[in-house]
């Protein structure tokens, strides 16, 4: 098995007729994902490479049985698109869009936490179960079906981590890019719960970065509830305080959210922390050896 998505997942793209939406719908379909439809209000009845376009998510779900979506609509409309997907009963929502106002996400999150839905992102690369289903913008070919659950707040750094675990001969179960914003739908802890009970996942690699306390919370959860080997890397040891490092969520404010604090919390509970970003794959191997 894997987590969240697999070969049976039926995916639609909200914003399918935009440049990015069309491009990545093709990319996902070519990878082997069941891309069953798309949504652009007012363009229902058209198609993109034979993939039908609907006016609403509700129409798309009724016609195709879709249970997952990837969202490429502009930032100003992303909150609305997420809420529409939840309303239509979609279970896995990957919001790729960058630049969503944070208070929009506060309001969306009020709804998300009351429903049985997994929102990934926003401002994320999406998620992939290698060989089965890719929902998002990551390059599919670097992934190999395998045993490492990879979860990350970053995009390209995740590719780096995936590539390293592939080089170690481990491969990945499911990789999830949580997104670089201050508030994201799915947290490290949400995924730790899923990886812990997933049979295919034998080890977990967590890639964090400066800002917030998500890594510290994850460390506390690992100590109590996770039996599988966990390795981690924290980006931004050299980041200056008070500066937003590209991601809206990557900022050290009031002396809080530093890499040093996070590394300390992770190491305190026995998580194998990679000091160098070149050492992420090897850190997973060490974490596995430690538990063996």
């Amino acid at each position, binding site marked *: 098995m894997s987590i969240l998505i697999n070969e049976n997942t039926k995916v639609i793209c909200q914003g399918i007729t935009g440049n990015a939406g069309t491009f990545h719908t093709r990319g996902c379909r070519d990878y082997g994902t069941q891309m069953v439809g798309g949504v652009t209000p007012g363009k229902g009845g058209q198609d993109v490479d034979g993939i039908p376009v609907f006016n609403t998510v509700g129409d798309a779900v009724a016609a195709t049985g879709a249970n997952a979506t990837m969202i490429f609509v502009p930032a100003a409309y992303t909150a609305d698109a997420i809420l529409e997907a939840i309303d239509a009963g979609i279970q896995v929502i990957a919001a790729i869009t960058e630049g969503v106002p*944070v*208070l929009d996400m506060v309001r969306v999150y009020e709804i998300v936490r009351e429903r049985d839905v997994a929102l990934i992102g926003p401002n994320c690369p999406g998620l992939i179960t290698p060989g089965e289903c890719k929902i998002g913008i990551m390059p599919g070919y670097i992934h190999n079906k395998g045993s490492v659950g990879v979860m990350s707040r970053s995009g390209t750094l995740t*590719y780096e981590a995936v590539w390293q675990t592939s080089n170690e001969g481990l491969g990945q179960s499911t990789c999830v890019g949580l997104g670089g914003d201050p508030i994201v739908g799915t947290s490290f802890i949400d995924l730790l719960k899923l990886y812990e009970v997933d049979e295919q996942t034998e080890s977990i690699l967590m890639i964090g970065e400066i800002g917030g*306390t998500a890594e510290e919370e994850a460390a506390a959860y690992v100590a109590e509830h996770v039996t599988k080997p966990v390795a981690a890397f924290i980006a931004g040891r*050299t980041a200056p305080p008070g500066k937003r490092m590209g991601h809206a969520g990557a900022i050290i404010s009031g002396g809080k959210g530093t890499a040093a604090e996070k590394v300390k919390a992770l190491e305190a509970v026995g998580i194998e922390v990679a000091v*160098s970003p070149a050492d992420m794959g090897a850190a997973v191997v060490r974490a596995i050896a430690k538990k063996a």
Partner: protein
Amino acid sequence: MKIHEFQAKELFQKAGVTVLRHMVARTKEEAAAAYDELGTPLAVVKAQIHAGGRGKGTIVEVPDQHGVQLVQSREEAAQVAANLLGNTLVTIQTGVEGKVVNQVLIEEGCDIARELYLGIVLDRAVQQPVLMCSTEGGVEIEKVAEETPELIHKEHFDPSYGLQSYQVRKLCQKLGIEGASVRIADRFMKALCRLYVNSDCSLVEINPLVVTSEGDIIALDAKVSFDSNAMYRQKEIAEYRDLSEEEAMEVRAAEAGLSYIKLDGNIACLVNGAGLAMSTMDIIKLHGASPANFLDVGGGADKDQVTEAFRILLSDPNVEAVLVNIFGGIARCSTIANAIVAASQEIGFEIPLVVRLEGTEVEEGRRILEESDVDIITATDLTDAATKVVAAISG
């Protein structure tokens, strides 16, 4: 996005949050006139820069002048304004280079009974905004949070419903605000929380928040910053932006769709993706050198953007070598390779350039670089790249 204190106070006034009478001056004559206009014997002159710690900060050109000073005559107001205006204020938050003071705020004095602290931020762990108050006003709140966290009182609120009266009463009890002042606090705190939500703020901070002898509650200071992602729907606030307060190269980079932050090392880096860009800085440091910048060219970087990125990197006189680290996803290595070749033809590289490419269309990218006449040190992975770029500056 940050704004000045006088702009924040303008927003406070519009929102119904009490501030003292004040005026803004850009010359010493204006400062003297403002003192007369305010008409109170005691006034305060405050330097307007986008950084805290002004009261303890000092002026480079007039070392015994602090950024905030009480004045008791029009002559004194003019003198302090003359000391501040056009000069550079260095505070714990500005870095050693400081910031030039282009305007001062002159405000009437008031009868302070107590100094409190009030702040509103997003609590990322709870995923809601939180109003924080403390009896320990007028001092560094980070220090209070560190040493005596029990003195900081918090109430979270849902942006759709706003802060509730019972929450204000709870806070008042802890702050020792009593009697008629509770009703004043209710109006004051609710108005601030509404401002935070309606204006897409990322921070509202008042330190000190003053309770007067008459029981009135006043924002003596005002620090407000905003969620840059929401500025498309906050047109009036976007007008407050003061580009002179921002690093010129960072502004230029943003205009080109690049995310750039200047640092003080000597190895420049050009990377796709924020996480990988931070990691590249980290690995340079691990190999004993210092990064000159953070630079994320993003996923859709084209030739023009990459060329502009190189221009920005090379404009920093401290830079002795450049490390390009690309893990192609959406961004194709071939596009980046073509951009490197084009940029080198346009700008010309006189310092070592180490390039590490991986990911989408990597073979094509490497071939383009090999076949060009650009002098490039190629690297196979992150460690190799860091080793080679550090060797390049020490050799």
